């Protein structure tokens, strides 16, 4: 038990329902290739994995550091493009991945520093609006530098041998193909990154960050250089997002503006973090899982309802499977009012 | 209309601001037609008391009665319309509006009464001079005058004034004392003034209340307190001649 507490950095889920839910998610993801058949399920599982990292990094920024930013997908994109362009330009090898990741991390952290330092000159509201503008510009820039980035279409690339679908690893009587190896690479990377973030927020650094979030004036008065702490928090979140981007690129074997830089994705992770529960990190796990599952499977449910209400006036339009975001939007608004601490908060309240 | 009951009474008023318990049971009676000084050290709760009366902060316990009405839970605009004028510590001047517009806003019932305006110009000539200028360019003392002018532009029953002499030069304070004396004489209004400047307090106050730690620890006639140096020392920590 002590080992478990150490791994979770002393920040366990707390609450039976929550623990159960998290275990279900964990086990489903850990044994996905065995539990679910078909490539689509594995796609969903992998997507949940890297979105957990992305959402958690956003929670680190929003929930723990208290910075409202709409430019987070920028860092996600930097990671995706970093790994993707390296694999595209330098060939499908492990060293390409490493070089691409390293470059992406450096770029992301430097950019986060610049953005972070600028945020201290202006009020929080201003900052939120400015990040919106910056993210749009970045996205447009990426589409327009088509010679390098592949423009709107992005870049397809191949992965190192071991991660390719055609690759087969024979372990005793079992045959594992490259796709499954890739999946587990992403799964374990996501797990480690999540636990790392858990450690960060529960460290002395993390606690100071939360103190600053709750009452900056007081933290300053107590002698903490809030500027430094917030900048570091900003950079850590950006780095984590970039790594999530690397994982995304590795899974999709593709990188492009639509899957990494679009404002829709920004809204998605905002929904994930808020619905799941801000400032908890576990909220990101639940939010990501709910969101990705809804995106994939809710549409089927909605299609059924849409057919069933075919004769009636407005209903079929509103239940059209393409309108799944409408319902998530409603859920989002409701959760801001009624579950201010998200699902995690709700579940923890009923221990 | 000689009514000797207090115009304003606070009974057992408690006010919390967030987790802080600022007013811890304030009992205060403000006599009609007189000027009451509210004294006390920094942090004693004087400003909080005024703000609670004005409804800007709501009392968590106790009652505030104004001329027979329980105004404890009233909204600020309603309290103002009942005839209470408030001159806050930071003056509350609208810097982007002109002097004229500031006064116009304060004159709730419509256009400004000419005679009243003449009277105000007599007390504060600077306001006439800077009539069409943005209030933000006025000096500290002039802003204070404008703030008070706003309160007296129309007849009011009760004035709540928070530290009118704060940060002002001694010459201007002399001006202020004259203006207040004039105000007392001509309007017969009830005035509650929070002050740190004891000289100012002594020259104008009819009654005095001293606060400490969120409570009123002494109340009575100003003349009494002015003569009793030991009492001054105990309540205010300073002597008359030091506290100017």
């Amino acid at each position, binding site marked *: 038990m002590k080992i478990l507490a150490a791994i979770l950095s002393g920040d366990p889920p707390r609450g039976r329902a929550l623990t159960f839910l998290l275990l279900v998610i964990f086990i489903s993801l850990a044994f996905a290739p065995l539990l679910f058949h078909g490539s689509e399920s594995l796609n969903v599982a992998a997507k949940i994995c890297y979105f957990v990292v992305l959402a958690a990094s956003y929670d680190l920024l929003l929930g723990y550091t208290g910075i*409202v930013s709409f430019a987070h997908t920028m860092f996600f994109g930097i990671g995706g493009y970093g790994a993707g362009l390296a694999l595209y330009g330098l060939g499908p090898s492990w060293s390409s991945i490493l070089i691409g990741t390293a470059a992406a991390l450096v770029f992301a952290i430097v950019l986060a520093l610049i953005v972070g330092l*600028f945020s201290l*000159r*202006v009020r*929080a*509201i*201003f900052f*939120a*609006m*400015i990040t*919106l*503008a*910056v993210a749009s*510009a970045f996205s*447009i820039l990426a589409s327009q530098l088509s010679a390098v980035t592949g423009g709107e279409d992005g870049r397809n690339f191949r992965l190192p041998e071991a991660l390719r679908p055609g690759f087969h690893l024979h372990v005793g009587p079992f045959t594992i193909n490259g796709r499954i190896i890739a999946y587990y690479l992403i799964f374990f990377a996501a797990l480690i990154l999540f636990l790392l973030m858990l450690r960060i927020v529960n460290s002395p650094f993390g606690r100071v960050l939360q103190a600053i979030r709750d009452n900056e004036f007081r933290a300053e008065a107590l002698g903490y250089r809030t500027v430094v702490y917030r900048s570091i928090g900003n950079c850590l979140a950006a780095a984590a997002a970039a790594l999530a981007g690397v994982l995304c690129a590795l899974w999709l074997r593709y990188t492009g503006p639509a899957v990494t830089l679009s*404002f829709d994705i920004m809204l998605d992770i*905002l929904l994930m973090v*808020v619905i799941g529960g801000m400032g908890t990190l576990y909220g990101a796990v639940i939010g990501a899982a709910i969101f990705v599952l809804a995106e994939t499977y809710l549409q089927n449910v909605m299609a059924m309802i849409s057919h069933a209400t075919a004769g009636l006036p*407005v209903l079929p*339009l*509103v239940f*059209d499977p*393409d309108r799944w*975001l*409408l319902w998530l*939007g*409603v859920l*989002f*608004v409701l959760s*801001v009012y009624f579950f*201010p601490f998200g699902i995690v908060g709700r579940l923890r309240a009923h221990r | 209309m000689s009514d000797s009951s207090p115009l304003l009474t606070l009974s057992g008023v408690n006010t919390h601001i967030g987790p802080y318990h600022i007013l811890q049971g304030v009992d205060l009676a403000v006599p009609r037609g007189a000027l009451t000084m509210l004294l006390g050290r920094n942090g004693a709760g004087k400003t909080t008391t005024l703000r609670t009366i*004005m409804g*800007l902060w709501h009392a968590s316990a106790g009652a505030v009665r104004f001329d027979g009405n329980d105004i404890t839970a009233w*909204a*600020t*605009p309603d309290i*103002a319309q009942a005839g209470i004028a408030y001159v806050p510590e*930071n003056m*509350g001047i*609208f*810097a*982007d*509006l002109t002097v004229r*517009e500031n006064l*116009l*806003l*304060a004159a*709730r019932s419509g256009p400004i009464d000419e005679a009243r305006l003449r009277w105000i110009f007599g007390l504060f*000539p*600077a306001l006439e*001079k*800077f009539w069409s*200028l943005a209030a*933000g*360019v006025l*000096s500290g003392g*002039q802003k204070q005058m404008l703030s008070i002018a*706003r309160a007296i532009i129309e007849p009011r029953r009760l004035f709540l004034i928070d530290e009118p002499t704060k940060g002002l030069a001694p*010459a201007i304070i002399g*001006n202020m004392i004259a203006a207040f004396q004039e105000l007392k004489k001509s309007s017969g209004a009830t005035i509650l003034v929070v002050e740190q400047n004891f000289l100012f307090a002594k020259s104008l106050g009819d009654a005095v209340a001293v606060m400490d730690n969120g409570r009123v620890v002494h109340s009575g006639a100003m003349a009494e307190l002015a003569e009793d140096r030991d009492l001054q020392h105990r309540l205010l920590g300073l002597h008359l001649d030091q506290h100017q």
Partner: protein
Amino acid sequence: MTARGELSLPAQRRDFVPALLVPLVALIALPLVGSPSTWVTLTVAGLAMGMIIFIIASGLTLVFGLMDVLNFGHGAFITVGAYAAAALVPLFAASLRADSMILNLLALLALIAFAMAVTAVLGYAFERVIIMPVYGQHLKQILVTIGGLIVTEQLIIAVYGPVQIALPVPTAFRGSVIFGDVAIERYRLIAVVIGLVIFAAMLLILNRTRIGLLIRAGVENGEMVEALGYHIRRLFVGVFMAGSALAGLGGVMWGFYREALTPGMGMDVMVLVFIVVVIGGLGSVGGCFIGALLVAVTANYTGFLAPKLALGSNILLMALILLWRSRGLYPVAKR
């Protein structure tokens, strides 16, 4: 007995410098563009677009300045306004197709009136249902208004479908007026005129009426306004509705400007609107006006000179202005 004897009046520093920025940028662009006739075309286009953005942004900045409410869902009103007008177009088809300025203008005004009515009502609902519960909590406001934006956009797609709908400019407004070798599009001139009328009306209301006085004072210090005896919160709903109606008006104008409607059109403009509001200073109508013209004119010049840098140039502009005045061109003197 004056306090300081006979003092001279302090100079009323009328801050004109920001107003010079727009002519400045225009002048810088002239040699870069080269041909004067193209320059005029671009400048007029920029002014027209700027007026439309000003109309949209003015509502947002007043609402924030007065009510301290940040409505990220403002873009929804733009879209709703445009679609509402489009819904009524069939009714006025004849008037819009006729080659008569008067008929076109009347029809346009009717569409605008309808769009503004619809968005005003929507604004009322938005304020009471979505925003009122979270007064004072900025983070939650940002979140719920974004949620409102998402839901509204999805509803529009549900009803109208995700594809573009055409909205052709009324007949008499098409084409250009020719001055020598300069061609100025008629519709853009109309847009500039409408924009100026709105700006003048806003200034009149703000500076010459009691309500305007309350709004300007309330933007500075709402608490003091209450202490003077005014129920300023009752004013809030009215201002919010006015802001939403203005966004609706902007939406109609924007729809005709691009001659197309898309469900995301509101959101597209919002990035520029935010830049304008930040540049102008939250709560300042004058700053908003200058900011809008500046942004639109810059976007048009760079759109011609270096299209890839269009949005980037506006962000650079915003950064430069914030470095010069960190709270915007005309920051309202806050509490």
